[in-house]
């Protein structure tokens, strides 16, 4: 099993018939492997970029208090926009 970057490099050189060929194809392979993840990241970042950060719930230690605060946020969002999310 391949477990290190060096192992992957060696394997690629072997599979593609030489170091030069492996280097030339490296970006194409990167895009093939990570392309869908990059698209998802781009979509996700554009999604959250329009969302404000209002408070830090993680300072609360009591789980019940966190749930109560999340209910308040849910109510606020419902009033602001949830009703538009039905058709």
């Amino acid at each position, binding site marked *: 099993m391949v477990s290190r970057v060096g192992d992957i490099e060696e394997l690629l050189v072997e599979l593609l018939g030489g170091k030069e060929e492996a280097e030339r194809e490296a970006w194409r392979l990167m895009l093939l492997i990570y392309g869908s*993840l990059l698209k*998802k*990241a781009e*979509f*996700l*970042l554009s*999604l*959250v970029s329009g*969302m*404000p*950060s*209002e*408070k*830090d*719930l*993680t300072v609360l230690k009591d*789980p019940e208090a*966190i*749930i109560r*605060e*999340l*209910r308040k*946020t*849910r*109510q606020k*969002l*419902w009033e602001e926009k*949830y009703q*538009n*999310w*039905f*058709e």
Partner: protein
Amino acid sequence: MVRVVLDSNEYVFYIMGLSDVVEFVLNAGAEVCVHTAIIEEVWRNLMAPAHKTAFLSVLLSPGVRIYTDKLPRALREKYARLGLRGGDILIAAFTEFCRADILVTEDTNFGVLKGAADVPFEVLSYRQLRSRGL
């Protein structure tokens, strides 16, 4: 494949290190469905960059599917009729819409759905999910 919706409280507890719900569900091979409404609820309540990164990292997992769809109005009426209020209606409607098998939440407001006829998913706390398994 089992589909799961995690309520916003589950993400917050996970990010705070109070639970390992995300790993448990993803390692079991389930697909996690998340609506933008849930993302916004969590995002609005995070300030620390490390916490935001942790949340983004969860959402970027291959087993997490993000939905931006509008939901059928009939589902809104259905879950209002079953006793849910406000934004909780949207969470239940989304859980049915994405054909999830389980809604995982620590919020007792969803208790009204337990045992109700015509609800095509289970409502479980993380503790209940863990002891029952996926």
